[in-house]
Structures are given as C-alpha cells and as structure tokens.
C-alpha cells in the first residue's frame, strides 16, 4: 500500500465535502488544482489561452460528474482523464482547422517562458521536449510534472502499464540522444 501525503488526503477530504454540497470546499479544491491542470494543458496544447479554455471545460465536466464519482481517492486520476480527453479534443480540432486553413499554423503561440538566467541545459531540453509528439509530452508531464506513478499514468492515458514504461524509456532515450547531439554539435 502506498502512503499518501497529507496534501493528497486533504484533497480527498475536499472532494467529499464538495460532493456533499460545500461551496467553500469546492472553491478551495479549484484553487489547489488549477495550476496543476493548467501546466498539463499547456504541455499538451502549447498555447496559454487554449490551456485556460481546456481547464475551464475540464472543470465544467468535473462539476457535472462529481456526484457520480464513487471513490474520492480516484479524483486525481479521474480529473486527469477528463483533462487529457479535453486536450486531445482540442489538438484534434486544431489539426482539422489547420488542414482547412494552413495559415492558422503560423499563429500558434509560443508557450515557452524564457526566463533570464536560465541555464543552457534546461533551455536545450525545453527545445527538445517541444519537438516531441503530443503523447510523449503528455507522458513526461504526467510523470515528472504531476508526479503520477506508472499505474496512474496507464489509467489516465488508457494504455497498459508496460506500454507506459516502454514509451517513457523510449522518450528518455530520445531526449538523451538529442541532448548528446546538442552537446557534441
């Protein structure tokens, strides 16, 4: 059995209170989760405004389905499943639109926040991550940004655990290769 942090347990408590109809608990839950959801949506959509839209749509879906959630411990996975689906919908819609109008592709906002004083290593890694396909970026974000374990990622992305492991391994190998090439070149 994995031990949960007090933060995780507190989140579950907030979910239960929200299910019981507490407005304050739900408000706190939104406040605590907003940033996590937005960062993941940003990784997937690469656009700050789109990330906000996707997060809003996710919250609307959460409000609709919260009373049907049987187990509060599943909230984080359930939320990321919804978010992942919303992001996938957005990406699909964008792809469709860009097929119709190729000019739209050039308008895609660059999401990377170039902080002053950031070191070369993280910058080149940032560029390398940006080049990765959406599913690999999702995997990295869920593992290293949202700190989900392999089984949770498998549930969110609806793929077997073995596939998660192999994809993660492949993605890290690709990044290592890109980083190595950058260093040598």
């Amino acid at each position: 059995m994995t031990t949960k942090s007090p933060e995780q347990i507190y989140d579950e408590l907030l979910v239960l209170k929200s299910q019981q109809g507490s407005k304050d608990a739900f408000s706190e839950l939104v406040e605590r989760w907003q940033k996590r959801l937005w960062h993941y949506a940003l990784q997937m959509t690469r656009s700050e405004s789109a990330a906000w839209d996707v997060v809003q749509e996710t919250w609307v879906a959460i409000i609709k389905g919260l009373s049907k959630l049987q187990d509060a411990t599943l909230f984080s996975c359930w939320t990321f499943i919804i978010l992942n689906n919303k992001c996938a919908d957005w990406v699909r819609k964008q792809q469709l639109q860009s097929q119709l109008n190729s000019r739209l592709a050039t308008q895609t906002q660059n999401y990377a926040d170039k902080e002053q004083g950031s070191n070369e290593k993280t910058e080149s890694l940032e560029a390398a991550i940006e080049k990765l396909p959406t599913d690999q970026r999702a995997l990295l974000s869920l593992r290293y940004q949202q700190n989900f374990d392999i089984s949770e990622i498998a549930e969110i992305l609806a793929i077997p655990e073995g596939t998660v492991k192999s994809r993660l391994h492949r993605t890290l190998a690709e990044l290592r290769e890109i980083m190595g090439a950058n260093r040598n070149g």
Partner: protein
Amino acid sequence: MDELEKTIQVTLSRTGKFDAGKAETLRKEIVQMFEGKLKKVKLLTWAFLLIDGIIIAGGIIGLLVNLLITKNTNAMIISAVVVLIAHEGTVLIKLWYWVLNTKYGVLKELKQLQLQIAELKGKTPPAEN
C-alpha cells in the same frame, strides 16, 4: 531518478507563466457554476417533494370522499394506491438523501482521521536504533 529526469522536472516546472489573476477569475466562474448546479438540484428535489405532497393530499381527499360520500370501492382502491405510491416516493427520496449524507459523513470522518495520522507521521522523528 537520474540527472536527466531531474533536469526534465526543472524544465517542465519552468514552462509557461501562470496568470494568477486569470486563475482567480476562472475560479469564481467555476464556483458560480457549481453553485448553480447545487441550486438546480435543490430546486428539483423540492419540486418533486411538493408534487408528491399534492398527490398525497389529493389522494387522501379522494379516499375520504369515496369512503364517506360516494362509497365507490374501485375509486377508493385507486386513491389508496396513488397515496401509497406518492408516499413511498417521498420516503425513498428522503432515505436516499439520508443514506448519501451518512456515507459522506462517515467518509469525511475517516479522511480527517487519515489526515491527522499522516500529519503526525510527518512530525514524528525517526526512531533511533
């Protein structure tokens, strides 16, 4: 976790500027939506109970009229069945609410206990051996 994985963590945490103002506006909107949904559920429940109450009252009046004035047995049975069904409806919706509320209450207590244990675990220094 190797060096690359640590760098990935740092890099991912750097991306994007989280707009706290926008987050606050969105939070307010979402909470309003949540409140709206709660109100809707409350309204539907009260409407159901009100309609049920009217049906029960109507059924009882019908039952009394048939019992004391018209003495129509068939109509009396129909009125009694209507009253029973409507009454069961009220009982069931109250029971459902009570069961759900008790379930959440118990789960909340359990979570609070879990939270206290987790917090105490964090405060307790590791045993010296």
